[in-house]
């Protein structure tokens, strides 16, 4: 079941949406539906992530800094000019 909603968006953004809808042969309503679904899924994924120190004990998704050991020992960020 679907329901009708009304909202206000940035003019330039709406122009981009109209252009994309024309290029992709989609309805604007379909694009809004895709965008909202994506937003909700990402928000739910964030909420399901571990919190607290558990998060810090997970595998780091970021690559190790190239000079990780010296980076902290020699030059803590807060002490940099």
């Amino acid at each position, binding site marked *: 079941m679907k329901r009708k909603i009304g909202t206000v968006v940035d003019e330039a953004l709406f122009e981009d949406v109209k252009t994309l809808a024309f290029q992709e042969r989609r309805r604007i309503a379909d694009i809004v539906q895709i965008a909202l679904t994506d937003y909700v899924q990402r928000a739910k994924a*964030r909420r399901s*992530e571990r*919190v*607290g*120190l*558990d*998060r*810090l*004990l997970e*595998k*780091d*998704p*970021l*690559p*190790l*800094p*190239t*000079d*990780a*050991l010296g*980076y*902290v*020992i020699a*030059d*803590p*960020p*807060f*002490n*940099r*000019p």
Partner: protein
Amino acid sequence: MKSLTDIRNGTRIFLDTSILLYARWGISPACRALLKRCQGKAVQGVITPFTLADFCTSRMAQEAQAAGFTQEPTPLLDFAEDLADASEPPLPPGGLRFRSTLDLSRTPQIIRNLTIYADDTRALLSGELEIASVHPEDFLEALFLQKTHGLLTSHSLNVAIARRLGLNEIAAADPAFDSVQGLIVYHPQDFQATQ
């Protein structure tokens, strides 16, 4: 030199930023084990807003680098070529120019798109670690510690706060604290080069 494994259960101990980063980077099982002990309340880990700021800054820069937004941190000596930049006024003889080692301060749109560093910093605010408050007099003590032990700003502030709280044990990868009399420093000794 004392190891992190020498920390006894029930100890209330100050955690330096390096411990948090090494645990997050996965390069020191001992740092990770210490955080697990803090999580389980076997050890009471204490940090300060300066620790949080250090951690937040490091992770922000790391995430930005990983996303390809910025250059590597530049050693101060490499600034020589910057001094020749015609867009900046010439320095007087012997003058020093201070600037950030990263360009993130000039690119707020980049920072807005980063998320991992923020979630990691929020993780430290979850209540599993004690976050000590900062008092104005901590700065006076920090200035004294800088003079007597040659400590840098954040190190001296953290030691000042630790002392006020009656903490005389600190976990740190950084050797800077070794020179502070009356402080028992525990170091990780198991760095692993790869994740």
